[in-house]
């Protein structure tokens, strides 16, 4: 197994490349999950909670 990791003497370059790529991908996955958790938290606790309909905002009424 040893010589597999040695990569013919280029271990540093090969594993630094693969290692950083793996690290960046893992970081992105972690970031996306954290983002999702924040969003869910926002939705659950926001006061704009959908009471059946999107809060309608102001209406324009005819006033004399």
């Amino acid at each position, binding site marked *: 197994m040893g010589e597999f990791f040695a990569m013919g003497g280029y271990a540093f370059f090969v594993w630094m*490349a693969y290692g950083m790529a793996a690290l960046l*991908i893992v970081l992105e996955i972690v970031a996306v999950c954290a983002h999702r958790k924040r969003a869910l938290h926002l*939705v659950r606790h926001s006061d*704009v909670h*959908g009471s059946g309909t*999107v809060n309608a905002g102001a209406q324009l009424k005819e006033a004399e």
Partner: protein
Amino acid sequence: MSGFKYAAPAQFYPLAGKMALWFGVSAAVLAVIGLVIGLYIAPIDVTQKDSYRIIFIHVPAAWMSMFLYVVMAFWGAIALGMNTRLSAMMAQSIAPTGALMTAIALWTGALWGKPTWGTYWAWDARMTSELILLFLYLGIIALRNAIDDPRRADKACSVLALVGVVNVPIIYMSVNWWNTLHQGATIKAGNSSIDDIMLAGLLFMVFAFWFYSVAVTLVRLRTIMLEREVGAAWVARLPEVKEER
């Protein structure tokens, strides 16, 4: 809501969840196969010995970085043309993954360059263009963060992506011109004849990266939908929102 049935975020949200799962799992499987081939089975390259194995990460990442930019510009164009919110959100969720792929391509390219050309940064035409592509991605992400109103941010980023996608080939061509003018044609890095095993490894890795990008983009898309439709009724009815974790 104009557009086809799935244009409405409410219907697309659950579908995107399933697709993300499928693409994620298949990406993992493809990556494992690709890595086994690339790192273990593929023979040593006659000139570069083992350092060439970095291409199994570098090439897919480089292709994805360009492909994702074009896809982002495509969804941006649809968002501008048909004024549909979903395609704008799709364009927004692609940008970070595209930037990540560019960063991976640059990092692995530098580590591949050191044993091959003796230096991490040799102003190689492709690498320089990749660096400029990273600036384009970061520009779009910076513009996105600078604008508070989501709808204006969507449209502005779509316009910038379209202007960018027109310029990407021009930049690549001009950097190539500049590179050959100064260094002459650099030795074609990488072996000339790619035999079948290497090609297989490469293809597996390309699909792995592609499916990974789709999965991550869809997950980020669902999150953006939640943020954008905070008050919407369909959000309130979602299972993950209801149960109080």
